[in-house]
Protein backbone atom coordinates (compact mmCIF):
# COMPACT_ATOMS: atom_id res chain seq x y z
CA UNK A 1 0.00 0.00 0.00
CA UNK A 2 2.77 2.41 0.98
CA UNK A 3 4.73 1.39 -2.11
CA UNK A 4 1.73 2.06 -4.34
CA UNK A 5 1.22 5.52 -2.87
CA UNK A 6 4.91 6.28 -3.33
CA UNK A 7 4.73 5.20 -6.96
CA UNK A 8 1.71 7.39 -7.61
CA UNK A 9 3.36 10.37 -5.94
CA UNK A 10 6.51 9.84 -7.98
CA UNK A 11 4.52 9.64 -11.20
CA UNK A 12 2.67 12.84 -10.36
CA UNK A 13 5.96 14.56 -9.60
CA UNK A 14 7.38 13.48 -12.95
CA UNK A 15 4.29 14.77 -14.76
CA UNK A 16 4.54 18.07 -12.88
CA UNK A 17 8.20 18.49 -13.81
CA UNK A 18 7.41 17.80 -17.46
CA UNK A 19 4.61 20.36 -17.42
CA UNK A 20 6.79 23.00 -15.81
CA UNK A 21 9.58 22.43 -18.32
CA UNK A 22 7.17 22.44 -21.24
CA UNK A 23 5.50 25.73 -20.31
CA UNK A 24 7.80 28.74 -20.31
CA UNK A 25 7.62 30.75 -17.09
CA UNK A 26 5.80 34.06 -16.79
CA UNK A 27 7.07 36.48 -19.35
CA UNK A 28 9.41 34.15 -21.13
CA UNK A 29 9.52 34.38 -24.89
CA UNK A 30 8.80 31.44 -27.13
CA UNK A 31 9.34 30.72 -30.79
CA UNK A 32 6.35 31.56 -32.95
CA UNK A 33 6.45 31.15 -36.74
CA UNK A 34 3.34 33.31 -37.17
CA UNK A 35 5.02 36.11 -35.25
CA UNK A 36 7.99 35.84 -37.56
CA UNK A 37 5.66 36.14 -40.56
CA UNK A 38 4.04 39.21 -39.00
CA UNK A 39 7.48 40.70 -38.45
CA UNK A 40 8.24 40.37 -42.12
CA UNK A 41 4.91 41.96 -42.93
CA UNK A 42 5.63 44.84 -40.57
CA UNK A 43 8.96 45.53 -42.18
CA UNK A 44 7.31 45.69 -45.59
CA UNK A 45 4.47 47.90 -44.37
CA UNK A 46 6.87 50.29 -42.62
CA UNK A 47 8.43 51.00 -45.97
CA UNK A 48 5.11 51.14 -47.82
CA UNK A 49 3.50 53.60 -45.39
CA UNK A 50 6.62 55.50 -44.29
CA UNK A 51 6.42 54.51 -40.64
CA UNK A 52 9.71 55.19 -38.80
CA UNK A 53 9.18 52.97 -35.78
CA UNK A 54 6.99 50.09 -34.62
CA UNK A 55 6.78 48.00 -31.49
CA UNK A 56 4.70 44.84 -31.53
CA UNK A 57 3.94 42.38 -28.80
CA UNK A 58 1.90 39.21 -28.84
CA UNK A 59 0.73 37.36 -25.77
CA UNK A 60 -0.47 33.81 -26.23
CA UNK A 61 -2.29 31.80 -23.61
CA UNK A 62 -1.67 34.85 -21.41
CA UNK A 63 1.72 33.57 -20.37
CA UNK A 64 3.82 33.14 -23.43
CA UNK A 65 5.39 35.88 -25.41
CA UNK A 66 6.93 35.74 -28.80
CA UNK A 67 10.64 36.14 -29.42
CA UNK A 68 11.94 39.64 -28.94
CA UNK A 69 14.52 41.58 -30.86
CA UNK A 70 15.10 45.08 -32.15
CA UNK A 71 15.48 46.16 -35.76
CA UNK A 72 16.59 49.22 -37.61
CA UNK A 73 15.35 49.90 -41.08
CA UNK A 74 17.23 51.34 -43.98
CA UNK A 75 14.09 52.94 -45.37
CA UNK A 76 14.21 55.77 -42.86
CA UNK A 77 16.79 58.48 -43.00
CA UNK A 78 17.56 61.24 -40.58
CA UNK A 79 16.48 64.69 -41.65
Amino acid sequence: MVFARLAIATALLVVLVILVLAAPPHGQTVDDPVFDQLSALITAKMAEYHVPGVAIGVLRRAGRRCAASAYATSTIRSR
Partner: protein
Amino acid sequence: MRGFGVRNVNDPQPVTLNTVFPLASISKTVTATALMRLVEQGKVDLRAPVRRYLPDFRVADETVSRDVTVWHLVTHTGGWEGQLSATDKGDETLARFVANLATNMQLAPPGAAWSYNNAGFAVAGRIIEVVTGKTFSDAIDDLVFGPLGLKLAFTRVGDVVAHSPAVGHVVGPDGTPVMQRTFTLGSSPPAGGVAMSIDNLLEYARFHLGEGLGANGSRMMARATLDAMQTPQLRKQGYDEDIGLAWHLRTVGNVRTVAHGGTFSGHILLLELVPDRQFAMAILTNAGSGWRLIQDVEREALRAYHDATFSPNQAIGHRGLNETLPSATPLAKQPQPTAYVGQYERPMNTVDVRVENGHLVVQVRPRGRDADAPMPLTFYGTDRAIVTAGADANASVEFLRDGLGAVQWVRLTGRIARRVAEPARGARPSATGIAQGR
Protein backbone atom coordinates in the same frame (compact mmCIF):
# COMPACT_ATOMS: atom_id res chain seq x y z
CA MET B 1 7.72 41.32 -28.80
CA ARG B 2 9.76 43.26 -31.25
CA GLY B 3 10.80 46.80 -31.90
CA PHE B 4 11.36 48.01 -35.44
CA GLY B 5 12.93 51.14 -36.79
CA VAL B 6 13.70 54.33 -34.93
CA ARG B 7 12.16 56.38 -32.12
CA ASN B 8 12.45 59.56 -34.17
CA VAL B 9 14.05 60.43 -37.47
CA ASN B 10 16.05 63.37 -36.13
CA ASP B 11 17.81 61.21 -33.56
CA PRO B 12 17.44 57.71 -35.02
CA GLN B 13 17.83 55.57 -31.94
CA PRO B 14 16.26 52.12 -32.35
CA VAL B 15 12.83 51.24 -31.04
CA THR B 16 13.30 48.74 -28.25
CA LEU B 17 11.02 46.91 -25.85
CA ASN B 18 11.61 49.76 -23.37
CA THR B 19 10.73 52.59 -25.75
CA VAL B 20 7.83 54.52 -24.26
CA PHE B 21 4.97 55.24 -26.68
CA PRO B 22 2.11 57.64 -26.00
CA LEU B 23 -0.93 55.36 -25.95
CA ALA B 24 -3.41 58.09 -26.94
CA SER B 25 -6.94 56.73 -26.57
CA ILE B 26 -5.88 53.33 -25.25
CA SER B 27 -5.56 55.45 -22.11
CA LYS B 28 -9.34 55.35 -21.82
CA THR B 29 -9.14 51.71 -20.76
CA VAL B 30 -6.70 52.67 -18.03
CA THR B 31 -9.09 55.35 -16.81
CA ALA B 32 -11.94 52.86 -16.82
CA THR B 33 -9.83 50.33 -14.94
CA ALA B 34 -9.15 52.88 -12.22
CA LEU B 35 -12.80 53.87 -12.15
CA MET B 36 -13.92 50.26 -11.80
CA ARG B 37 -11.56 49.79 -8.87
CA LEU B 38 -13.41 52.66 -7.21
CA VAL B 39 -16.73 51.01 -8.12
CA GLU B 40 -15.54 47.82 -6.42
CA GLN B 41 -14.61 49.86 -3.37
CA GLY B 42 -18.10 51.33 -3.26
CA LYS B 43 -16.84 54.85 -3.91
CA VAL B 44 -18.41 55.26 -7.37
CA ASP B 45 -21.73 54.04 -8.75
CA LEU B 46 -21.80 53.74 -12.54
CA ARG B 47 -25.53 54.47 -12.61
CA ALA B 48 -25.27 57.53 -10.42
CA PRO B 49 -25.60 60.99 -11.94
CA VAL B 50 -22.32 62.70 -12.64
CA ARG B 51 -23.50 65.48 -10.33
CA ARG B 52 -23.35 63.17 -7.34
CA TYR B 53 -19.57 63.53 -7.63
CA LEU B 54 -19.30 66.82 -9.50
CA PRO B 55 -22.18 68.99 -8.21
CA ASP B 56 -21.30 71.86 -10.52
CA PHE B 57 -21.16 69.71 -13.65
CA ARG B 58 -22.82 71.45 -16.54
CA VAL B 59 -23.07 71.14 -20.33
CA ALA B 60 -25.24 73.29 -22.57
CA ASP B 61 -28.36 71.19 -22.00
CA GLU B 62 -29.54 71.49 -18.40
CA THR B 63 -31.57 68.28 -18.46
CA VAL B 64 -28.57 66.34 -19.64
CA SER B 65 -26.38 68.06 -17.06
CA ARG B 66 -28.74 66.83 -14.36
CA ASP B 67 -29.40 63.32 -15.59
CA VAL B 68 -26.29 62.06 -17.34
CA THR B 69 -24.58 59.22 -15.48
CA VAL B 70 -21.06 57.96 -14.98
CA TRP B 71 -21.98 55.03 -17.24
CA HIS B 72 -22.58 57.41 -20.15
CA LEU B 73 -19.07 58.80 -19.73
CA VAL B 74 -17.29 55.49 -20.21
CA THR B 75 -19.51 54.26 -23.05
CA HIS B 76 -19.21 57.34 -25.30
CA THR B 77 -22.92 58.04 -24.94
CA GLY B 78 -23.05 61.46 -23.26
CA GLY B 79 -24.27 62.91 -26.54
CA TRP B 80 -22.41 66.22 -26.30
CA GLU B 81 -19.55 67.26 -28.56
CA GLY B 82 -16.64 65.13 -27.50
CA GLN B 83 -13.71 66.23 -29.63
CA LEU B 84 -12.31 68.70 -27.13
CA SER B 85 -8.79 68.98 -25.80
CA ALA B 86 -7.84 69.95 -22.27
CA THR B 87 -5.17 72.63 -22.13
CA ASP B 88 -2.38 71.52 -19.82
CA LYS B 89 -2.84 73.42 -16.55
CA GLY B 90 -0.85 71.04 -14.42
CA ASP B 91 -2.80 69.59 -11.52
CA GLU B 92 -5.76 71.84 -12.38
CA THR B 93 -6.11 70.58 -15.95
CA LEU B 94 -9.23 68.47 -15.45
CA ALA B 95 -10.97 70.78 -12.98
CA ARG B 96 -10.65 73.66 -15.42
CA PHE B 97 -11.61 71.56 -18.42
CA VAL B 98 -14.79 70.27 -16.81
CA ALA B 99 -15.73 73.76 -15.62
CA ASN B 100 -15.46 74.98 -19.20
CA LEU B 101 -17.95 72.44 -20.58
CA ALA B 102 -20.93 74.58 -19.60
CA THR B 103 -21.54 75.77 -23.14
CA ASN B 104 -20.65 72.49 -24.83
CA MET B 105 -23.14 71.67 -27.60
CA GLN B 106 -25.50 68.73 -27.10
CA LEU B 107 -25.64 66.75 -30.32
CA ALA B 108 -27.98 63.96 -29.23
CA PRO B 109 -29.78 62.78 -26.13
CA PRO B 110 -27.49 60.55 -24.03
CA GLY B 111 -27.49 57.03 -25.40
CA ALA B 112 -29.40 57.89 -28.57
CA ALA B 113 -26.56 58.02 -31.10
CA TRP B 114 -23.22 56.45 -30.29
CA SER B 115 -20.43 58.98 -30.85
CA TYR B 116 -16.80 58.79 -29.83
CA ASN B 117 -16.33 61.16 -26.91
CA ASN B 118 -13.01 62.26 -25.45
CA ALA B 119 -14.64 64.88 -23.24
CA GLY B 120 -16.67 62.23 -21.42
CA PHE B 121 -13.53 60.45 -20.33
CA ALA B 122 -12.04 63.72 -19.10
CA VAL B 123 -15.11 64.09 -16.89
CA ALA B 124 -14.63 60.52 -15.67
CA GLY B 125 -11.04 61.40 -14.83
CA ARG B 126 -12.20 64.39 -12.85
CA ILE B 127 -14.54 62.13 -10.89
CA ILE B 128 -11.56 59.92 -10.05
CA GLU B 129 -9.70 62.99 -8.79
CA VAL B 130 -12.57 64.15 -6.60
CA VAL B 131 -13.36 60.71 -5.18
CA THR B 132 -9.74 59.86 -4.38
CA GLY B 133 -8.69 63.36 -3.38
CA LYS B 134 -5.64 62.98 -5.62
CA THR B 135 -4.51 64.27 -8.97
CA PHE B 136 -5.42 62.03 -11.87
CA SER B 137 -1.76 61.08 -12.30
CA ASP B 138 -1.34 60.12 -8.64
CA ALA B 139 -4.62 58.22 -8.66
CA ILE B 140 -3.60 56.19 -11.71
CA ASP B 141 -0.24 55.47 -10.12
CA ASP B 142 -2.00 54.20 -7.01
CA LEU B 143 -4.90 52.37 -8.64
CA VAL B 144 -3.31 50.85 -11.74
CA PHE B 145 0.39 51.30 -12.41
CA GLY B 146 1.63 50.59 -8.89
CA PRO B 147 -0.44 47.46 -8.23
CA LEU B 148 0.48 46.06 -11.66
CA GLY B 149 4.18 46.82 -11.16
CA LEU B 150 4.39 48.87 -14.33
CA LYS B 151 7.64 50.80 -14.19
CA LEU B 152 7.48 52.22 -17.71
CA ALA B 153 3.95 53.59 -17.55
CA PHE B 154 3.36 57.32 -17.14
CA THR B 155 0.81 60.10 -17.34
CA ARG B 156 3.12 63.09 -17.05
CA VAL B 157 5.05 64.43 -20.02
CA GLY B 158 7.94 65.19 -17.70
CA ASP B 159 8.25 61.50 -16.86
CA VAL B 160 7.80 60.33 -20.45
CA VAL B 161 10.59 62.43 -21.93
CA ALA B 162 13.03 60.99 -19.41
CA HIS B 163 12.40 57.43 -20.62
CA SER B 164 13.30 57.12 -24.32
CA PRO B 165 9.99 58.17 -25.84
CA ALA B 166 8.93 57.48 -29.38
CA VAL B 167 8.11 60.73 -31.16
CA GLY B 168 5.25 61.03 -33.62
CA HIS B 169 5.71 61.68 -37.32
CA VAL B 170 3.71 62.83 -40.30
CA VAL B 171 4.58 62.22 -43.91
CA GLY B 172 6.36 65.29 -45.26
CA PRO B 173 6.00 66.91 -48.70
CA ASP B 174 8.67 64.66 -50.21
CA GLY B 175 7.01 61.53 -48.85
CA THR B 176 9.43 60.89 -46.01
CA PRO B 177 8.50 61.08 -42.30
CA VAL B 178 8.93 64.36 -40.45
CA MET B 179 8.76 64.71 -36.68
CA GLN B 180 5.50 66.04 -35.28
CA ARG B 181 6.15 68.96 -32.97
CA THR B 182 5.72 69.69 -30.20
CA PHE B 183 5.78 66.53 -28.15
CA THR B 184 2.52 66.22 -26.23
CA LEU B 185 0.30 63.50 -24.89
CA GLY B 186 -3.40 63.08 -25.68
CA SER B 187 -6.41 65.36 -25.67
CA SER B 188 -6.63 65.05 -21.88
CA PRO B 189 -4.88 62.72 -19.44
CA PRO B 190 -7.91 60.41 -18.91
CA ALA B 191 -8.84 60.33 -22.61
CA GLY B 192 -5.38 60.00 -24.06
CA GLY B 193 -2.54 60.87 -21.73
CA VAL B 194 -1.03 57.52 -20.74
CA ALA B 195 2.32 56.40 -22.15
CA MET B 196 3.83 52.91 -21.84
CA SER B 197 6.46 50.61 -23.22
CA ILE B 198 5.30 47.61 -25.25
CA ASP B 199 6.53 45.39 -22.44
CA ASN B 200 4.39 47.13 -19.83
CA LEU B 201 1.42 47.25 -22.19
CA LEU B 202 1.50 43.47 -22.53
CA GLU B 203 1.58 43.17 -18.74
CA TYR B 204 -1.48 45.40 -18.65
CA ALA B 205 -3.11 43.15 -21.27
CA ARG B 206 -2.23 40.06 -19.24
CA PHE B 207 -4.03 41.59 -16.28
CA HIS B 208 -7.20 42.14 -18.29
CA LEU B 209 -7.06 38.52 -19.48
CA GLY B 210 -6.27 37.13 -16.06
CA GLU B 211 -7.86 36.65 -12.67
CA GLY B 212 -7.48 40.22 -11.47
CA LEU B 213 -4.24 39.73 -9.55
CA GLY B 214 -1.66 42.45 -9.13
CA ALA B 215 2.09 42.11 -9.54
CA ASN B 216 2.53 40.76 -6.02
CA GLY B 217 -0.13 38.10 -6.53
CA SER B 218 -2.74 39.74 -4.35
CA ARG B 219 -6.28 40.45 -5.49
CA MET B 220 -6.48 43.78 -7.35
CA MET B 221 -9.87 43.44 -9.06
CA ALA B 222 -12.50 40.75 -9.24
CA ARG B 223 -12.57 38.76 -12.44
CA ALA B 224 -16.26 39.58 -12.60
CA THR B 225 -15.41 43.28 -12.79
CA LEU B 226 -12.97 42.71 -15.63
CA ASP B 227 -15.68 40.67 -17.36
CA ALA B 228 -18.14 43.52 -16.91
CA MET B 229 -15.72 45.85 -18.68
CA GLN B 230 -15.64 43.43 -21.62
CA THR B 231 -19.42 42.82 -21.69
CA PRO B 232 -21.59 44.63 -24.24
CA GLN B 233 -23.17 47.66 -22.63
CA LEU B 234 -24.75 49.04 -25.77
CA ARG B 235 -24.86 48.36 -29.50
CA LYS B 236 -22.95 51.10 -31.25
CA GLN B 237 -25.86 52.23 -33.39
CA GLY B 238 -25.15 51.79 -37.09
CA TYR B 239 -22.23 49.43 -36.52
CA ASP B 240 -22.10 45.66 -36.18
CA GLU B 241 -20.39 45.87 -32.80
CA ASP B 242 -20.82 46.90 -29.19
CA ILE B 243 -19.22 49.11 -26.60
CA GLY B 244 -18.14 47.73 -23.24
CA LEU B 245 -16.86 49.87 -20.39
CA ALA B 246 -14.25 51.73 -22.44
CA TRP B 247 -13.43 48.59 -24.47
CA HIS B 248 -14.68 48.26 -28.05
CA LEU B 249 -16.17 44.84 -28.72
CA ARG B 250 -16.04 43.33 -32.20
CA THR B 251 -16.62 39.84 -33.47
CA VAL B 252 -14.43 38.71 -36.36
CA GLY B 253 -15.45 35.32 -37.67
CA ASN B 254 -15.83 33.18 -34.57
CA VAL B 255 -13.53 35.35 -32.49
CA ARG B 256 -14.70 37.97 -30.00
CA THR B 257 -12.21 40.82 -29.76
CA VAL B 258 -11.88 43.42 -27.03
CA ALA B 259 -9.83 46.36 -28.19
CA HIS B 260 -8.95 50.01 -28.12
CA GLY B 261 -7.01 52.05 -30.61
CA GLY B 262 -5.28 55.36 -30.25
CA THR B 263 -4.58 58.31 -32.52
CA PHE B 264 -2.67 61.38 -31.45
CA SER B 265 0.12 63.62 -32.57
CA GLY B 266 1.71 61.34 -35.15
CA HIS B 267 1.14 58.14 -33.20
CA ILE B 268 -1.32 55.40 -34.12
CA LEU B 269 -1.69 52.43 -31.79
CA LEU B 270 -3.80 49.36 -31.04
CA LEU B 271 -4.27 47.03 -28.10
CA GLU B 272 -6.43 44.01 -28.81
CA LEU B 273 -7.46 41.12 -26.59
CA VAL B 274 -9.08 37.84 -27.59
CA PRO B 275 -10.20 36.71 -24.14
CA ASP B 276 -11.56 33.33 -25.21
CA ARG B 277 -8.14 32.43 -26.62
CA GLN B 278 -6.13 34.13 -23.84
CA PHE B 279 -4.50 36.14 -26.60
CA ALA B 280 -3.39 39.74 -26.78
CA MET B 281 -1.61 41.83 -29.36
CA ALA B 282 -0.30 45.37 -29.22
CA ILE B 283 0.99 47.35 -32.17
CA LEU B 284 2.48 50.78 -31.51
CA THR B 285 3.59 53.09 -34.32
CA ASN B 286 5.07 56.55 -34.41
CA ALA B 287 3.50 57.77 -37.66
CA GLY B 288 0.18 59.27 -38.63
CA SER B 289 0.03 56.74 -41.46
CA GLY B 290 0.49 53.94 -38.94
CA TRP B 291 -3.20 53.03 -39.01
CA ARG B 292 -2.74 51.46 -42.41
CA LEU B 293 0.09 49.29 -41.10
CA ILE B 294 -1.91 48.36 -38.02
CA GLN B 295 -4.95 47.48 -40.09
CA ASP B 296 -2.99 45.20 -42.40
CA VAL B 297 -1.08 43.52 -39.57
CA GLU B 298 -4.09 43.13 -37.27
CA ARG B 299 -6.21 41.50 -39.99
CA GLU B 300 -3.39 39.17 -40.95
CA ALA B 301 -2.77 38.29 -37.28
CA LEU B 302 -6.43 37.48 -36.69
CA ARG B 303 -6.42 35.27 -39.77
CA ALA B 304 -3.13 33.55 -39.02
CA TYR B 305 -3.58 33.01 -35.27
CA HIS B 306 -7.34 32.49 -35.11
CA ASP B 307 -8.53 31.76 -38.64
CA ALA B 308 -10.78 34.79 -38.20
CA THR B 309 -11.98 36.89 -41.11
CA PHE B 310 -14.69 39.52 -41.45
CA SER B 311 -18.18 38.81 -42.71
CA PRO B 312 -19.25 40.37 -46.02
CA ASN B 313 -20.43 43.93 -45.51
CA GLN B 314 -19.56 43.87 -41.81
CA ALA B 315 -19.95 47.40 -40.47
CA ILE B 316 -16.91 47.92 -38.29
CA GLY B 317 -17.05 50.74 -35.79
CA HIS B 318 -14.66 53.42 -34.71
CA ARG B 319 -12.29 52.15 -32.01
CA GLY B 320 -9.98 55.16 -31.64
CA LEU B 321 -8.10 54.78 -34.91
CA ASN B 322 -8.94 55.00 -38.60
CA GLU B 323 -9.97 51.83 -40.39
CA THR B 324 -11.42 51.07 -43.79
CA LEU B 325 -14.28 48.68 -44.32
CA PRO B 326 -13.02 45.13 -44.92
CA SER B 327 -15.66 44.64 -47.60
CA ALA B 328 -18.62 46.60 -48.92
CA THR B 329 -20.78 45.49 -51.80
CA PRO B 330 -22.99 48.36 -52.96
CA LEU B 331 -26.71 47.81 -52.71
CA ALA B 332 -28.20 46.90 -56.06
CA LYS B 333 -30.91 49.48 -55.47
CA GLN B 334 -29.54 52.62 -53.83
CA PRO B 335 -31.96 54.44 -51.48
CA GLN B 336 -33.56 57.73 -52.37
CA PRO B 337 -31.17 60.49 -51.22
CA THR B 338 -33.90 62.79 -49.95
CA ALA B 339 -33.92 61.14 -46.52
CA TYR B 340 -30.24 62.06 -46.04
CA VAL B 341 -29.76 65.37 -47.87
CA GLY B 342 -29.31 68.35 -45.61
CA GLN B 343 -26.92 70.20 -43.35
CA TYR B 344 -25.53 68.72 -40.16
CA GLU B 345 -23.50 70.53 -37.53
CA ARG B 346 -20.88 70.22 -34.85
CA PRO B 347 -19.25 73.11 -32.99
CA MET B 348 -16.16 72.98 -35.18
CA ASN B 349 -17.70 72.27 -38.56
CA THR B 350 -20.79 71.71 -40.63
CA VAL B 351 -21.34 68.67 -42.78
CA ASP B 352 -23.18 69.08 -46.07
CA VAL B 353 -24.93 66.07 -47.57
CA ARG B 354 -26.16 66.74 -51.08
CA VAL B 355 -26.61 65.25 -54.52
CA GLU B 356 -24.03 66.01 -57.18
CA ASN B 357 -24.28 64.59 -60.68
CA GLY B 358 -26.79 62.08 -59.46
CA HIS B 359 -24.64 60.82 -56.59
CA LEU B 360 -24.83 61.50 -52.88
CA VAL B 361 -21.78 63.32 -51.53
CA VAL B 362 -20.75 64.44 -48.07
CA GLN B 363 -18.53 67.46 -47.49
CA VAL B 364 -17.06 68.71 -44.23
CA ARG B 365 -16.78 72.47 -43.84
CA PRO B 366 -14.52 73.35 -40.89
CA ARG B 367 -15.24 76.74 -39.40
CA GLY B 368 -12.53 79.22 -40.28
CA ARG B 369 -10.88 77.39 -43.15
CA ASP B 370 -11.58 75.97 -46.58
CA ALA B 371 -13.96 73.09 -46.98
CA ASP B 372 -12.60 69.58 -47.33
CA ALA B 373 -13.01 67.81 -50.65
CA PRO B 374 -16.48 66.35 -51.26
CA MET B 375 -16.64 62.61 -50.65
CA PRO B 376 -18.87 60.51 -52.92
CA LEU B 377 -20.95 57.90 -51.13
CA THR B 378 -22.48 54.57 -52.05
CA PHE B 379 -24.78 52.68 -49.72
CA TYR B 380 -23.79 49.11 -48.89
CA GLY B 381 -26.46 48.63 -46.21
CA THR B 382 -29.40 50.38 -44.63
CA ASP B 383 -28.18 53.87 -43.70
CA ARG B 384 -24.60 52.60 -44.11
CA ALA B 385 -22.46 54.14 -46.82
CA ILE B 386 -18.89 53.91 -48.01
CA VAL B 387 -16.72 56.66 -49.46
CA THR B 388 -15.94 55.59 -53.01
CA ALA B 389 -13.09 57.92 -54.01
CA GLY B 390 -10.48 60.32 -52.66
CA ALA B 391 -8.18 60.25 -49.65
CA ASP B 392 -10.90 58.71 -47.47
CA ALA B 393 -11.89 55.99 -49.93
CA ASN B 394 -13.37 52.92 -48.23
CA ALA B 395 -14.09 54.79 -45.01
CA SER B 396 -17.60 54.33 -43.66
CA VAL B 397 -20.24 56.99 -43.14
CA GLU B 398 -23.38 56.19 -41.19
CA PHE B 399 -26.72 57.93 -40.92
CA LEU B 400 -28.56 57.48 -37.64
CA ARG B 401 -32.26 57.81 -37.01
CA ASP B 402 -34.26 58.92 -34.02
CA GLY B 403 -36.99 56.89 -32.36
CA LEU B 404 -39.49 58.08 -34.96
CA GLY B 405 -37.39 56.85 -37.86
CA ALA B 406 -36.13 60.19 -39.14
CA VAL B 407 -32.48 60.66 -40.06
CA GLN B 408 -31.09 62.98 -37.41
CA TRP B 409 -27.35 62.44 -37.50
CA VAL B 410 -24.50 61.73 -39.89
CA ARG B 411 -21.42 60.10 -38.43
CA LEU B 412 -17.91 60.38 -39.85
CA THR B 413 -14.89 58.81 -38.17
CA GLY B 414 -17.07 57.75 -35.29
CA ARG B 415 -18.33 61.27 -34.48
CA ILE B 416 -21.86 62.48 -35.09
CA ALA B 417 -23.06 65.80 -36.45
CA ARG B 418 -26.70 66.67 -35.85
CA ARG B 419 -29.11 67.65 -38.55
CA VAL B 420 -29.80 71.36 -38.65
CA ALA B 421 -32.68 71.42 -41.09
CA GLU B 422 -35.96 69.96 -39.96
CA PRO B 423 -36.15 66.26 -40.73
CA ALA B 424 -38.46 65.04 -43.45
CA ARG B 425 -40.79 63.51 -40.91
CA GLY B 426 -41.05 63.11 -37.17
CA ALA B 427 -39.96 65.44 -34.45
CA ARG B 428 -36.46 66.28 -33.30
CA PRO B 429 -35.39 64.24 -30.30
CA SER B 430 -35.97 65.69 -26.89
CA ALA B 431 -33.07 65.98 -24.51
CA THR B 432 -35.27 64.36 -21.92
CA GLY B 433 -35.46 61.17 -23.98
CA ILE B 434 -32.51 59.69 -22.22
CA ALA B 435 -31.80 56.15 -23.27
CA GLN B 436 -29.81 53.86 -21.08
CA GLY B 437 -28.26 50.62 -22.26
CA ARG B 438 -27.45 47.65 -20.18
